[in-house]
């Protein structure tokens, strides 16, 4: 039941979350899983009401996904993994001196997408709610219990493998990686998940660091002097988001953010952002027009996929069936001893659907109310401050420390080495063109995949 105290807590948490993720969003190279999952998990472990943690999470998505595009627009540097597909669009626009146009349109698209996809996702999830118990029914396949949602996850991971740069390796990775994960769980003697996720997340960084320890291998990545970052000028930006978008941009942003919010139940947010954005860019003969349309629509898709990819699996399926729910949002599917069940179950059992919807819309609005005007007015100043004060070295150290502490918590010293093993393999596979989403989803499906493999 909603009360004033809960609303007050939701307000405070949403404000703090927005402020923290504005900075994290602007920081170059911050991975979503590494920055969102551990904090959500820490809050859940600390006994914060799971609905409030979900409000925190929604506020974080809104602030993070709006601000991670700012360094892209101003300097061509992505603030998060999801902003990487926007870099080529931004470089074209910057060449023509349109950096502030991008900033204006990107912010507006994100603002509109955040509101419409959240409301749309909540309606779709409510309509699909009756499907939940059907999807959670266990079927016996030659004696192996397989929940029906597993097939959604399986189709999703195969699609993701087929959209990876190295399709054959990505497909082969599914059974191989599942065996590795189940092997590690066997050694640990418990169904560990979170530290394995973080192993995948920090995998590329850890792999590159070990790679660079060899003098011969690191030759290709040695650079002299500091990296030059050119920060573009920003003009006046209207606070009214509808004024900043053309009719065509508004239509594409709205339609694609809604469609992809549902597709993200099983598909990769990064994959969808690349796919739809590239299609739109190629649809225009004028290179600059194509880049601006793609950049703007990608901004909407980022919000749509993150919100839909979290809420539909959480509310309808009750299992992490896509890279978003099996990545940054995974803490909501992990059993928390303090509440004696998974946070998503607690939320659905304790609160009415209306209460959940109101709190989530409220937290998104608070996040927008802080992030949007702040970015409209001070995007350049915040970016300058963050770029001048925070080194990548410190940030990578923080990621590694968080992964290590969670690995130790999960399974002691073997957990740390297991996490490093997963990180090295993930880093190597990512370098060979396998989407990290394939690995995230394989971790979730590993027990069933291995049980089915044993049948063959």
């Amino acid at each position, binding site marked *: 039941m909603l009360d004033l105290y809960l609303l007050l807590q939701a307000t405070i948490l949403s404000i703090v979350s927005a402020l923290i993720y504005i900075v994290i969003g602007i920081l170059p190279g911050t991975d979503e899983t590494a920055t969102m999952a551990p904090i959500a998990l820490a809050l859940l472990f600390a006994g914060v009401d799971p609905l409030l943690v979900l409000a925190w999470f929604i506020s974080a998505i809104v602030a993070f996904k709006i601000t991670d595009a700012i360094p892209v627009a101003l300097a061509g540097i992505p603030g998060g993994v999801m902003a990487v597909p926007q870099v080529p669009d931004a470089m074209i626009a910057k060449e023509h001196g349109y950096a502030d146009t991008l900033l204006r349109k990107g912010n507006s698209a994100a603002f509109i997408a955040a509101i419409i996809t959240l409301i749309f996702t909540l309606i779709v999830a409510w309509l699909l709610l009756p499907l939940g118990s059907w999807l959670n029914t266990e079927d016996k396949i030659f004696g192996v219990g397989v929940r029906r949602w597993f097939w959604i996850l399986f189709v999703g991971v195969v699609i993701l493998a087929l959209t990876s740069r190295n399709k054959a390796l990505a497909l082969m990775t599914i059974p191989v990686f599942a065996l590795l994960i189940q092997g590690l769980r066997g050694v640990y003697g418990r169904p560990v998940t979170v530290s394995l996720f973080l192993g995948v997340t920090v995998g590329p960084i850890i792999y590159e*660091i070990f790679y660079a*320890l060899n003098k011969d291998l690191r030759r290709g990545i040695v650079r*002299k002097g500091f*990296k030059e970052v050119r920060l573009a000028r920003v003009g006046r930006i209207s606070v009214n988001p509808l004024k900043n978008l053309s009719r065509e941009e508004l239509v594409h942003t709205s339609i694609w953010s809604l469609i992809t919010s549902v597709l993200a139940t099983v598909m990769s947010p990064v994959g969808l952002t690349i796919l739809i954005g590239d299609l739109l860019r190629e649809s225009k003969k004028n290179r600059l027009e194509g880049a601006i349309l793609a950049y703007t629509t990608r901004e909407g898709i980022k919000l749509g996929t993150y919100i839909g990819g979290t809420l539909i699996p959480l509310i309808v399926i009750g299992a992490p069936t896509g890279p978003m729910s099996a990545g940054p949002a995974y803490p909501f599917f992990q059993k928390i001893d303090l509440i004696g069940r998974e946070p998503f179950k607690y939320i659905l059992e304790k609160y009415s659907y209306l209460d959940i919807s109101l709190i989530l819309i409220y937290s998104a609005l608070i996040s927008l109310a802080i992030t949007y005007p702040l970015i409209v007015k001070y995007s350049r100043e915040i970016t300058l401050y963050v770029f001048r004060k925070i*080194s990548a070295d*410190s*940030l990578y150290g923080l990621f590694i420390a968080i992964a290590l502490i969670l690995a130790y918590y999960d399974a002691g010293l073997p957990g740390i080495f297991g996490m490093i093993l997963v990180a090295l393999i993930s880093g190597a596979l990512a370098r060979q063109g396998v989407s990290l989403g394939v690995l995230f989803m394989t971790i979730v499906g590993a027990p069933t995949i291995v049980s089915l493999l044993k049948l063959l």
Partner: protein
Amino acid sequence: MRKKSFEEDPDEEFLELYGEYVSLKEIGISTALSVAGAFVLYFSAPYIAEILKTGSLVSALKITLGAVGASIGFLISIPFTRVKRKIVVE
């Protein structure tokens, strides 16, 4: 303590990781500080829980304090690592 970004040696070599320039030595320092902060607070959790008389929350406190410790280590590491970006304001 290392000097900040305004003291650039154009011949100094760095490694490019994910579009950012880093030094292995400075990553080592920052990782050591963040890991130390994380584990010190992680292992302090039972004592802190005892002081707070929240014995049942030890497990939860371990993760929360570990994350706080890592963040403290991160903040401490900032002056020990150099920002390797040369910002040109257009």
